[in-house]
């Protein structure tokens, strides 16, 4: 509760500052260049973003890392995007319509868009991009577009996706990299796809153009002067001339760079630094619950301890999620019990199955199984003291219910390997970065034999409900099916132990007016301007 109040307070302060700036009297700056009475934010200026690692792939087709998307969102436009509440909004596609049988979705496209290299964006561009994502060997996007059968160019401003079967999360899949449009000319001009992914210069239609990328040093994004977007007051976007992105892996150093003013923007601040970020006068800090979840993954395959569902439930009952959030995560994020996050349309704020810690109930469940006390191995990645502390906190909480978790520290690479092979012993500690459609947070993790179903979970009723919600475009029906399924895979026959949701953060120097925080944590630089 306290956390929400604080977040709300932060956001309110934020709104006040934004309002003040829009009113032509920015705090700490002068509005001399703006004509009297104009609500126009200042054009020009350059900012530095401190990113937690270097971008690996500029090509959306290959990209596998979260850091990549921070740059992708500036240089590429997708067919659709989300607003800051998580609602899907038109982007390159102005509107879309699902056929009555659900097996086709037709998108109307903007006709005033050109790529950075001067080529025109139209339905043919969409067809080429989507087919490239679907058909290239080793494409990381193939899975997200698996429901698509063929594409039909209806006219230059209209494209139809023909689906193999009705698939309601399709539009949501096009928000991110699977819906990003790359210039065919820029791609084909590169010596090889291996080169393109490292040097995708002027290859998108987005508000900024990638003009320089020096590995482990910096990336330069320059303003796209002919971007199509405007803000709600009709001002042409973007305001900034240049963004320099610097990869800084150490969170301490990243934060210091924000404090010294050497960097202006960061979206990953360590929990321990948040009080300083909030207190420091030169920094604005805001956060909101994100789409990511934190979870413990039991190996539910036959032959492993947690094939017994009551054991999974007992662990879930014995964990004090509120304490974990406060002491383990420095209040960053929110308490949660399943995969449906607050920004999802299917989220149920009243779903709190393990709100009260029930050590006695857990003891009883273990006793009912009748195999003596519950003792298991808990695999924790080595090398990260914060994760270890959280694991130890969980260990201590379980101890109160006479459950013994033996922490085994293994290299992250080793844990991944064991998890992929489904041969890990007992319990691992792995989260998920979150997807805007609840299906992306759920289906592949819970449905029998799907790629991220690392607990080897299988429940026929859950599978049926998850298929149902994919097949209907009716949001109310989807919500019901997803919530029903969640009750089963969290409580009745638990697939995992969920601990809560992460938070999207944004720390900015007061030298810039910050855009709102988005649940996907990615900074909307096209809405940012210099404060003075």
């Amino acid at each position, binding site marked *: 509760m306290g956390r929400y109040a604080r977040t709300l307070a932060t956001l309110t302060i934020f709104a006040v500052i934004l309002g003040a700036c829009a009113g032509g009297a920015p705090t700490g700056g002068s509005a001399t260049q703006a004509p009297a009475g104009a609500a126009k934010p200042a054009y020009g200026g350059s900012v530095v973003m401190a990113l937690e690692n270097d971008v690996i792939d500029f090509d959306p087709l290959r990209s596998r890392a979260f850091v990549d998307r921070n740059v992708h969102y500036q240089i590429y436009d997708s067919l659709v995007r989300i607003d800051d509440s998580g609602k899907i909004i038109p982007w390159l596609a102005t509107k879309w319509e699902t056929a009555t049988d659900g097996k086709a979705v037709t998108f109307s496209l903007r006709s005033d868009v050109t790529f950075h290299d001067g080529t025109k964006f139209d339905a043919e561009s969409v067809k080429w991009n989507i087919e490239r994502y679907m058909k290239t060997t080793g494409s990381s996007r193939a899975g997200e577009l698996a429901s698509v059968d063929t594409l039909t160019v209806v006219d230059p401003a209209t494209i139809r996706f023909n689906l193999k079967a009705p698939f309601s999360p399709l539009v949501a899949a096009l928000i991110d990299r699977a819906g990003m449009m790359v210039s065919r000319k820029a791609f084909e001009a590169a010596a090889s796809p291996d080169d393109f992914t490292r040097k995708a210069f002027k290859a998108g239609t987005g508000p900024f153009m990638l003009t320089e990328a020096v590995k*482990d040093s910096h990336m330069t994004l320059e303003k796209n002067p002919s971007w199509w977007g405007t803000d709600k007051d009709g001002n042409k976007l973007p305001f900034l001339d240049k963004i320099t992105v610097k990869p800084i892996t150490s969170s301490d150093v990243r934060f210091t760079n924000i404090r010294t003013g*050497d960097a202006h923007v960061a979206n990953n601040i360590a929990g321990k630094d948040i009080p300083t970020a909030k207190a420091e006068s030169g920094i604005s800090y805001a956060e909101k619950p994100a789409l990511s979840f934190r979870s413990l993954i039991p190996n539910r395959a036959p032959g492993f301890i947690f094939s017994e569902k009551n054991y999974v439930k007992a662990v879930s009952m014995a964990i004090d999620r509120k304490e974990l959030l406060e002491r383990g995560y420095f209040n960053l994020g929110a308490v949660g019990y399943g995969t449906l996050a607050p920004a999802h349309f299917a989220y149920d704020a009243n779903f709190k199955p393990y709100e009260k810690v029930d050590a006695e109930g857990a003891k009883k469940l273990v006793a009912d199984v009748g195999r003596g006390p519950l003792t298991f191995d808990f695999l924790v990645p080595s090398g990260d003291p914060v994760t270890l502390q959280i694991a130890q906190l969980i260990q201590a909480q379980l101890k109160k219910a006479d459950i013994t978790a033996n922490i085994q520290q293994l290299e992250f*690479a080793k844990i991944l390997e064991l998890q*992929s092979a489904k041969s890990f012993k007992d319990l691992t500690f792995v989260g998920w970065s979150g997807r805007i459609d609840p299906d992306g947070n759920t289906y592949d993790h819970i449905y029998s034999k799907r790629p*991220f179903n690392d607990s080897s979970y299988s429940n026929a009723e859950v599978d049926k409900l998850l298929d149902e919600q994919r097949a209907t475009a009716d949001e109310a029906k989807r919500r019901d099916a997803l919530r029903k399924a969640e009750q089963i895979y969290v409580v009745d026959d638990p697939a995992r132990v969920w601990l809560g949701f992460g938070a999207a953060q944004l720390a900015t120097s007061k030298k810039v007016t910050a855009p709102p925080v988005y649940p996907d944590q990615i900074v909307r630089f096209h809405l940012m301007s210099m404060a003075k």
Partner: protein
Amino acid sequence: MGRYILRRLVLMVPVAFLVTIIVFVLIRLSPGDPLVIYAGEERDEAVLAQLRTEYGLDRSMPEQYVSWLTHALQGDLGRSLRTRQPVLEALLERFPATLQLGFAALFLSVTIALIVGTLSAVYRNSPLDLIATGVTLAGVSLPNFFLGLVLILVFSLAVRIFPPGGYTPLLTDPADNLRHLVLPAITLATASLAVNLRQVRSSLLDVLGQEYIRTARAKGLRERSMVLRHAFKNALIPVVTVMGLQVGAILEGAIITEQIFFWPGIGKLAVDSIGGRDYPVVQGFVLLSAVSFMVTTLIVDVLYGVLDPRISYGSRRS
């Protein structure tokens, strides 16, 4: 001398060869599948299998090694599994930054060690000697990652003289390059400075106690020229040995220091590629380090001859 250097250079080849085999096997024995690691949240078995074939990771280890070696002999160290950048390009792109940082640190460490070490040997047990000894002890005990953060907090946040990390190429803006260089160079120099300083001090003390120095002193030679001309050069042999070994330590320290100051050298590349099992990059990096280290020891050996004419390589046969 020329023959000696040539022989040493030829000897490097089998050593480098052995190093590549050891690294090749070790990195593959360590658990974790690079493709699974890089797949992150895009773990699709079918895609991974395609990539495994494309990158040749499905072949047997000897097969992979022979293929790597054949290419390496033609100057092609392969491509990074993670970024698909040619390994040689990745190393060459970053090596100048590491080299600059390493040289700056070595220069700082050696200069200060020689000056302060000499002074504390000549004025032993003076306040200066005590302070120098105390500071060196602290220097050896402070790990890089801690010292780096402290320097950033003091000189970038409290007193804002130097930037908290980053890099500008020397040729683009020399002044800015140097500003960025100061803190990481001090961080990296500290530990090796301590070792070098103690070595200079004890070795000079040793020489100063020898009979020829007493003779020189008895003959009325001035203290100053006695120390600088007679004692100093003779004290340098063990010092040069230790400094040569320090190059290895500096390469190693650079890995951590580069991370803290996001200095875009090969250190960060090494950390990323070892953690991610990026086989070709690790192999290239270790090969480069091994060669750098061998070249340094060769330079040290040649320096012996310069410092002490009695050490001659040309005449000996073995």
